[in-house]
């Protein structure tokens, strides 16, 4: 069996003349948690819907476990748990009846009644009617439905939306357990610290195009160094006028720089001006994400 759990090749979707996604080439390996990032309308949900054959590609192919998402959709969906971003449930049903129906329709996959354990973990009262649930409790129902047959691949679109911080932690724990179990997670979220906490790699999609796919650690290491240097005599601004280096703050004694390239030259220049202290800042995925999107300059850094 292929180690590639998800593979898309030239995946393109147009809604009439409107762009959905364009030429998305993506691979997610067995056992990894893959974060899929992008602002609203970037194409995250479209990509997920194509993977599950909810919508069909205009061009290109998508496969899960080596199975074509269109031609072999039924076989592949047996192995997938999906939590959509816009969750809609049968309002007139009781939660336990809904889970029974869901288990009945999708097959338990050797995990019959597992939903009870999951509901207990999320403190979900399964005797209640779905219509009477708050947004957070409805989201819990969606989370349980996605996890309940112990799928080989979990596709989660904003899984912690509407949940309180404690339940968010529980859901993240559940995601880590899936990963620890050697199963695969395709994780889309706007909460970047959450993605950073559970994912090995991320794909960043912008205006329908996948602009970067990289391991989070590599991405952070490669993209940006942020340094604050303290001097006895502050050097002139031109000192660090190097390609890939920008000054973001300056006081009487210190300069803060963002360094993408030429780090050795920056350190050498600082040494010539009797630097007293250098402080490095941890760069978060959020910094990287904002960097990709260019903070208003059109985001052409990719």
């Amino acid at each position, binding site marked *: 069996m292929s180690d590639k759990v998800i593979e898309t090749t*030239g995946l393109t979707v147009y809604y009439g003349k409107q762009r959905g996604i364009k030429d998305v080439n993506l691979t997610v390996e067995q056992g990894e948690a893959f974060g899929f990032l992008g602002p609203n309308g970037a194409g995250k949900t479209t990509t997920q819907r194509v993977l599950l054959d909810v919508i069909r590609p205009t061009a290109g192919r998508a496969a899960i476990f080596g199975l074509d998402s269109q031609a072999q959709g039924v076989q592949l*969906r047996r192995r997938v748990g999906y939590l959509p971003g816009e969750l809609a449930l049968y309002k007139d049903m009781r939660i336990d009846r809904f889970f029974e129906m869901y288990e009945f329709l999708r097959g338990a996959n050797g995990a019959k009644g597992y939903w009870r354990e999951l509901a207990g973990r999320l403190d979900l009262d399964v005797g209640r009617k779905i219509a009477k649930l708050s947004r957070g409790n409805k989201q819990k129902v969606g989370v349980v439905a996605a996890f309940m047959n112990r799928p080989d691949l979990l596709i989660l679109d904003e899984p912690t939306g509407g949940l309180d911080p404690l339940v968010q932690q529980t859901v993240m724990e559940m995601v880590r357990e899936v990963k620890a179990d050697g199963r695969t997670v395709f994780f889309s979220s706007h909460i970047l610290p959450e993605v950073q906490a559970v994912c090995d790699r991320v794909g960043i999609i912008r205006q329908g195009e996948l602009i970067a796919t990289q391991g989070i650690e590599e991405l952070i290491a490669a993209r940006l160094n942020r340094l604050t240097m303290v001097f006895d005599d502050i050097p002139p601004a031109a000192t660090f006028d190097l390609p890939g280096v920008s000054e973001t703050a300056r006081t009487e004694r210190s300069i803060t720089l963002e360094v993408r390239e030429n780090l050795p030259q920056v350190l050498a220049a600082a040494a010539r001006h009797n630097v007293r202290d250098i402080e490095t800042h941890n760069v978060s995925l959020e910094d990287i994400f904002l960097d990709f999107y260019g903070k208003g300059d059109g985001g052409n850094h990719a």
Partner: protein
Amino acid sequence: MPRLIWQELKFRRNAIIGWGLGLCFFPIVYIGIYPSVADQMASLTDLAIYQYMGMNLNTFGNWVGSILLVFMPLIASVYAIINSTGTLAGEEEDGRLEMMVTLPLPRWQIIVAKAIAISLALLIILALVAGVSLLVFGALQNQVETDVTGINIFMAVLSVWPLTFAMGMIGLFLAVFAPSRRVALMLAAAVLIIGYLGPNLAASTTALEPLEPFFLFSYLDSSGQAIREGQWAGDMLVLILAGLAALALAIFFFARRNLTVGVWPWQRPKVARPHSAVQPPLIKE
């Protein structure tokens, strides 16, 4: 598949009870009052409105036919189109259909399960009305001078099923074809109204006569003779075939469409052919 059909039927439980009891109003009231209004009814037959609507009320058989094979099928068809357009287009609009199609079920099964559930729901509703009609007629039989039997009435009510099945399947097809539930329901209502009024218009207007075969209600005979002898099997077959054709179209279009996009078929993107393995893209941009 049986699981899915059972689930779809369970979703319709309240509707079956509600519409079934509601439609029982027709036999309870109209058969129930017949002994006391029989003489007046015979005199109403000459009124133009009744003649225009093809109603003849001068015998018990004609009276029952006018109610159970004219108004009752119309109301049952309203249920059929509301239910069938709501089950697909409605679920698609509120997002529930997305959850359903991401289950390991082929799309044709989803449509066929819904079609069977709608058909069974209609049959259960009509069987309930037929049973109540039989009971009401049984209670009043000795007060009515007629050669119509209880079984005739029971079978007459059940004979409405092919018409409602056809309407339900047309509704299902329109739900798949049209961009929204509202449009699908509007179109289905237009088909129903035209199908209902059409036969009488065609009968009274020579220019419309050639169109008569296209009006679904022209395949349901509402005369007293139809109550006594049953509907013509050929007409029933036409209605069932019309329903099956609409179902086939619904399956065809549903298998090829995107969900939650809300556009007409000709506005939908041209879809790449499925393949058993990942291939290079068809279009390189």
